């Protein structure tokens, strides 16, 4: 496959038409559409991510297009940045369209703390977060939950944390509306959750994990849309806080359990281009069970980020000797970027209920949409796109164009450019902490090797991804945030 196989329908939209492109490996049921610059598209062709977009286009019952967002890169089953919808009544659900870290996502808090007031406290805040919040693989949460309490977290998500486990008021139930789906999806089948998933998850509510997960204290550095920024509570020169993590071992186990079950169930019956694209009919017993387990893991992730938010607000209270209320710490929004959810979309002129898979992609609903909080009805929902360790993150807002062009979806992050081995090689002799300190970024991590794997050079240019996202109109820029303190898992 080459660039010339694509039709460029507008500056940042490229379509591979099913009727024109003939592949010996894949029978496309719908077109493939990629939001990209020529550079991004060429890279995606080279790293085989486009082949994965094609594989998804061949799934039965897929509606509209097999989409890829501007941060497209190679994944399993779906590419990272992959979006696809299937009919709610007759369609399919695929764990490979969600990923292993179910409801991995981002939460953004705004504050009324001016950068100057943070001043010398930055070091203390970084050390406190690293010492008080469990990071890395084997660290267990400070919260000790019985199995009964854990099952309530799976049932009620962030609401359970808000009602029973928060200390600062930032996590009160009044703020749940600022979470996608209010931090809770329906889950009422505890019997379908494996004991292993419970074992892996019950000690991890309130932990960051490792890899690319992070907590950042950021500076609101640039405002592009004054009106939306004011609604989101973002003021130039003030501090913001971003949390990136997911459903930890619980979600990973749910994904593994269901890939294994669906694989066994369909052995020799379903032929897919990639074993990770195994699927179940939504209305089948297996499909219903996976969706329930997916919801449980999504609820875990929202609960996890809710508890982390409360812990971080507590650290700010202790360090700055003011209450979270006085510091103006406010939950702006929390959104998933690995999930499958039922939504209404216009497909071929008709509104229908569909199951949208977003893997490494965020929801970007427009002003007035019924599923976004009342306070954002005039702006569209916040769309949170983090950059890499040393680069900016962006806040955008959802648009009607996203509903027309991308099933209400947008990019989710920078996406890796270098493998971890290459990043380690690239950073040989490099003092990552010192380099970032020269850029006024303090980095805290238990792992030096982990930091080298996550060097900014290992990631794609976030600015190019934002330019495509904004230029294609699938989200519009509101603010740029730059890191001041980075805590890595």
């Amino acid at each position, binding site marked *: 496959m080459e660039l010339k196989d694509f039709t460029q329908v507008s500056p940042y939209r490229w379509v591979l038409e099913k009727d024109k492109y003939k592949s010996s490996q894949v029978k496309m049921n719908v077109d493939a559409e990629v939001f990209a610059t020529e550079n991004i598209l060429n890279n995606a062709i080279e790293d085989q991510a486009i082949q994965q977009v094609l594989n998804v286009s061949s799934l039965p019952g897929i509606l509209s297009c097999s989409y890829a967002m501007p941060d497209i890169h190679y994944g399993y089953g779906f590419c990272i940045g992959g979006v696809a919808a299937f009919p709610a009544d007759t369609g399919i659900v695929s764990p490979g369209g969600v990923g*292993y870290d179910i409801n991995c996502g981002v939460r953004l808090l705004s504050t009324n703390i001016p950068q100057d007031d943070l001043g010398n406290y930055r070091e203390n805040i970084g050390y406190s977060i690293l010492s008080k919040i469990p990071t890395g*693989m084997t660290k267990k949460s400070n919260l000790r939950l019985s199995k009964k309490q854990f099952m309530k977290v799976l049932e009620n998500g962030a609401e359970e944390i808000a009602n029973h486990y928060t200390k600062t008021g930032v996590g009160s139930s009044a703020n749940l509306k600022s979470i996608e789906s209010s931090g809770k999806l329906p889950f009422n089948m505890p019997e379908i959750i494996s004991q292993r998933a419970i074992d892996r998850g019950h000690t991890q509510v309130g932990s960051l994990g490792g890899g690319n997960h992070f907590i950042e204290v950021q500076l609101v550095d640039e405002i592009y849309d004054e009106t939306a920024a004011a609604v989101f509570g973002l003021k130039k020169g003030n501090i913001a806080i971003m949390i990136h993590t997911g459903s930890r071992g619980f979600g990973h186990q749910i994904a593994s359990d269901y890939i294994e079950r669906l694989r*066994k169930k369909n052995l020799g019956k379903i032929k897919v281009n990639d*074993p990770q694209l195994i699927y179940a009919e939504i209305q089948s017993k297996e499909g219903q069970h996976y969706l329930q387990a997916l919801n449980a893991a999504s609820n875990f992730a929202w609960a996890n980020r809710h508890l982390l938010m409360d812990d971080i607000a507590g650290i700010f209270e202790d360090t700055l000797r003011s209450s979270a209320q006085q510091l103006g710490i406010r939950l702006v929004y929390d959104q998933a970027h690995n999930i499958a959810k039922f939504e209404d979309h216009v497909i071929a002129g008709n509104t229908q209920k569909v199951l949208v898979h977003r893997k490494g992609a965020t929801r970007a609903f427009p002003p007035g949409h019924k599923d976004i909080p009342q306070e954002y009805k005039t702006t569209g929902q916040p769309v949170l796109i983090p950059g890499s360790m040393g680069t900016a993150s962006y806040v955008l807002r959802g648009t009607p164009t996203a509903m027309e062009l991308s099933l209400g979806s947008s990019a989710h992050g920078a996406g890796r450019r*270098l493998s*971890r081995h290459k990043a380690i090689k690239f950073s040989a002799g490099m003092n990552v902490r010192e380099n970032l300190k020269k850029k006024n970024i303090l980095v805290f991590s238990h792992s030096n090797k982990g930091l080298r794997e996550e060097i900014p050079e290992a990631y794609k240019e976030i600015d190019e991804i934002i330019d495509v996202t904004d230029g294609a109109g699938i989200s519009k820029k509101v603010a740029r945030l730059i890191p001041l303190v980075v805590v890595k*898992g």
Partner: protein
Amino acid sequence: MEKYETFSTTADVGIRIRGSGYGELLQSAVKGLNLLYFDDHNLSSSASSSVYPFEFHGDSLENILVNLLSEIVFLLQNENKITTGLKIKEINETFLNADLLTIPADKEPNMEIKSVTYHNLKINRENNVLSTEIIFDI
């Protein structure tokens, strides 16, 4: 090719393993995983070793491999145990009965492995040597 080595994809990591039979292939997988986790493939049992029995009925050797490695990931993540070796009692293409020899983990692994994937997983057989690549989601 060594009996085990690590490699990276753009976003994730994997191990490349080979062995002259089912048992040796699985032993290589254990060592390869330790290389990935700890940069150390020669971890050995000690006085504080403990044994975890592992029995699995699968549908293929690929299926056994994924489930064995998933068990080792679980033991490290949840029980804080490093699997140093495998004592195989019975093995065929769809069945494994083995003891996992473990020691307490006294160091942080290099990375958090979320899951063992089936991505492009196929065990190749050439001149009685088995080989494959396994990718881990991290």
